[in-house]
């Protein structure tokens, strides 16, 4: 039998089903004359199938949230070039001011009107913060448009507080239906994928002020307060109560006085 010598590389390619058609017949003939080699290559094929069979189930498993967050962080891909110096959450912000009312209430115990504020904010957080592809309607790269649009729809001046100094960057925002009209939701995200939402609604009675209140709805912690014409609720399932309080302080300071 005169044939070109068959190389080990060709045998490997044959095992992978990648041999060029031109060499297929030659390699098959070579193997037909060598049962031991044929058995070896057949074993490689079986093993490849077994290896795929052993691990392919990973492809259909749900992806853990921490990996989804790791993949989706800093959403607009281009912003990566501008790597910011992140400050550990809480280090940059001072201790809470004394006006924080220390009573921790459940949603049910709070006054009925602000109950709804906290509850709605918690639900909005729970619904939108796990979103990977559509967490917001308008992204932070178009912040000016976002703020103008939401201000117009709410009929009040709305601003997105800047939380970059404590490691939370604005993802964007969206408009939501509230109990009596449109509501705005801003979403923030830390470098490691932890998310925070700020829910803003206009208040019917424009002269009320409340202290900070805290509530937990399922796993979502909410600090909420009313400051004259606006009601605010800062919600996160990923942050501790203390971290959330520091952020609420920061948001309050930035937004007071409109």
């Amino acid at each position: 039998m005169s044939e070109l010598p068959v190389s080990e590389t060709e045998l490997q390619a044959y095992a992978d089903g990648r041999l060029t058609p031109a060499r297929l017949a030659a390699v098959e003939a070579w193997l037909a004359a060598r049962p031991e080699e044929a058995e070896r290559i057949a074993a490689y094929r079986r093993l490849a199938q077994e290896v795929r069979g052993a691990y392919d189930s990973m492809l259909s498993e749900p992806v853990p949230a921490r990996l989804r967050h790791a993949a989706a962080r800093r959403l607009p891909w281009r912003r990566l070039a501008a790597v910011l110096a992140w400050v550990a959450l809480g280090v940059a912000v001072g201790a809470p001011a004394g006006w924080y009312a220390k009573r921790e209430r459940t949603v049910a115990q709070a006054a009925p009107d602000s109950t709804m504020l906290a509850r709605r904010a918690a639900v909005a957080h729970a619904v939108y913060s796990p979103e990977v592809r559509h967490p917001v309607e308008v992204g932070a790269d178009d912040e000016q448009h976002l703020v103008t649009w939401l201000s117009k729809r709410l009929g009040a001046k709305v601003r997105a507080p800047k939380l970059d100094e404590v490691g939370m960057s604005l993802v964007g925002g969206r408009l939501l239906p509230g109990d009596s009209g449109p509501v705005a939701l801003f979403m923030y995200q830390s470098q490691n994928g932890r998310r925070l939402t700020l829910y803003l609604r206009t208040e019917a009675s424009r002269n009320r002020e409340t202290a900070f209140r805290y509530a937990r709805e399922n796993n979502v912690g909410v600090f909420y307060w009313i400051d004259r014409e606006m009601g605010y609720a800062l919600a996160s399932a990923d942050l501790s109560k203390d971290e959330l309080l520091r952020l609420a302080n920061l948001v309050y300071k930035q937004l007071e006085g409109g």
Partner: protein
Amino acid sequence: MDEAQRLVELIPRLRRYARALVGDRASADDLVQDTLERAWTKLHLYRRGTDLRAWLFTVMHNVHVNRVRAARLNDPLGDEMPELAQRGTQADALLVRDLDRAIARLPADQRAVLLLVTLEEMSYDEVARTLGIPIGTVMSRLSRAREKLRAMMLGQAPAAKLKVVK
């Protein structure tokens, strides 16, 4: 479709490869997470329009190599395969467990080649680029990995070591 979206879509494949590479689920997901985070910081090195999958697997390979190296430094007793001890307890079926153990016992560089060819079905060229090695090295590692795996699954030492003395 932009890269961020494709990145998300590639996660299951990264997890499958990582699971086979490091042996247990939690370590595999740690590796995937480190890879995704590394990918974000190295993104300016990725050229748009080129193969994102190959690029990501390169990132994962580098992260893995660094982790293994670090583990070795932290473990004075660990010699050639420091990740071996953590493996092999979580698999469900017997075959999978045997296969898992056998794969764990392959030298790390051979294991990577075998898994990229078998699981990811990368071309030999792609494997060479992903791992940054010549294609001849890909072929020899593939050949050795398969022969070792076959021998282990038959319950015997690799053929090369069976120098029968008569």
